[in-house]
């Protein structure tokens, strides 16, 4: 992450702005920056998306591979997260430098998806105890300009929306031996219901107020923040306090309220963008990184 060092005066300037609900880039406390979303950007994947918020740029590829169900959950497939903080974002991430942040983020992702409603894992099972789909959700961090967690979860939701898993038929011969056959038709595929997929809203405490979608400068002004993962139904699936500072319980209650409110509108607009993009079908001009 490009590290930002702010002087006291700059901090005070940001703080006063937040106090008056007017941030340095003209936004209010509960406003996001422009979010650019594009799905189906990498053709080697079962689903992919790229999301850009300000200078934060994230690419997510979902790959479905055949595996064996976990012993304690024989009737379910499972999801694996991997976050690659590439040296693209900052030279500090070169070699193994990005691993620490990468594991921190993937731990967080495991936690927000650790419930029944996020992804329907039972639909990923092909043959109980024997075969299932493993969804590898690989996050590639290309640039970081604040609000990493929100961007990543939005991108994951978009990539999961874009995911098309091939249909599989289980054939059974006379002796009861089972065989698996992949459908030949590339359009014969299964889609995931993304209604339960949560998005994180990070609330940074600045002064007495809190802001969403903080820039790097604002993050540098904040001693503590709360991450709230909320799905479309408004259910909270994960919450965590981050940062060195401590928080007053009352302000956490307020932040939970804001988080839920913001997440709701975030989900609605994301879904409409995704639907709109899909309705264009093949006609859509793929942009990718070519502007």
């Amino acid at each position, binding site marked *: 992450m490009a590290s930002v060092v702010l002087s006291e005066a700059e901090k005070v300037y940001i703080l006063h702005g937040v106090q008056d609900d007017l941030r340095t880039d003209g936004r209010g406390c509960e406003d996001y920056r422009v979010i650019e979303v594009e799905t189906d950007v990498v053709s080697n994947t079962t689903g992919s998306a790229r999301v850009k918020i300000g200078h934060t740029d994230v690419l997510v590829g979902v790959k479905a591979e055949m595996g064996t169900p976990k012993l304690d959950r024989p009737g379910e497939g499972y999801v694996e997260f991997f976050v690659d903080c590439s040296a693209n974002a900052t030279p500090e991430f070169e070699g193994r430098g990005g691993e620490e942040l990468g594991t921190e983020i993937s731990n967080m992702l495991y936690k927000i998806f650790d419930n029944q409603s996020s992804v329907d894992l039972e639909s990923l099972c092909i043959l109980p105890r024997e075969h299932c789909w493993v969804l590898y959700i690989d996050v590639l961090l290309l640039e970081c300009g604040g609000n990493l967690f929100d961007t990543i979860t939005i991108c994951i939701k978009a990539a999961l929306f874009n995911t098309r898993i091939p249909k599989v038929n289980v054939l059974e011969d006379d002796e009861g031996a089972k065989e698996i056959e992949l459908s030949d038709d590339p359009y014969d595929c299964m889609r995931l219901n993304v209604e339960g997929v949560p998005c994180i809203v990070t609330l940074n405490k600045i002064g007495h107020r809190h802001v969403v979608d903080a820039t790097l400068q604002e993050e540098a002004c904040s001693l503590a923040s709360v991450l709230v993962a909320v799905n479309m139904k408004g259910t909270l*699936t*994960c919450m965590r306090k981050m940062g*060195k500072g*401590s928080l007053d319980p009352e302000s956490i209650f307020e932040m939970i309220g804001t988080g839920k409110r913001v997440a709701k509108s975030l989900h609605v607009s994301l879904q409409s963008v995704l639907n709109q993009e899909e309705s264009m079908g093949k006609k859509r001009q793929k942009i990718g990184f070519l502007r």
Partner: protein
Amino acid sequence: MPVDSRRVRGPEDGSQSPALYAEKEKEGEKVLRVGRGPSEQRAVCVRAGLLSQAAGSAYVEVAGGSKVMCGVWWGGGEGRLHCDLRWARFSSPSTGSQRRGGGALLLQQSLESAVRMERYPRAELMLSVLVMEERGAALPMAITCAALALADAGIEMYDLVVGAAACRGKTGEILLDPTEEEEEISANMYLTIMPNLSQVSGLLCTGEWEGDSPVEAMKLCMEGCQRLYPLLQQSLLSSSKKKVPPPGPEAS
């Protein structure tokens, strides 16, 4: 899989817990919580200053449950708190294992807001926590234990840090201080506070929390923490009575 050349080698293709092959109990509505109210905690036994080599140490044991040990010592670095949190292999109960990643981060962040690290610009504080037995709510216990060990070492802090856990069952009931069976089937919350300042220093919750339930659970946890506080003060008092004159941080 890469082989760890620094340990005695086990079976090549790994091993599985026998619990996975055990006859499953009926999946029906298991009755949670017998003989203990939803906002009732298990009894806790706390001792500070029992390790001979560490600058400060503490041990916390929950009746019929989790056992946590923590030691603190000085290292030669620059003003920073270094936490090491580990679960012994034999600590986890036979029923499956859960993802514990991120526990160390909660520990670190909870303590960082309490320890006045700026007072020790030229020293590194090292902290090592070992969970020997996990019967639910071991993570907040580990944080409590760590804060106690820091206090035992005479480190300047704004306040002790006390942790508590709560869980929310499928039917929406909220239980304080869950056992590992209760944790397994419900949504979990870990909360740490600085009781005197009434500030939240750490918060982590997973699973599904609907409506106002997170707020409710947080309040329950805070009450639990407050109840634990006098007990911790007591143990610190008795440990410092033992070592008179109290050694300064330079003594190590």
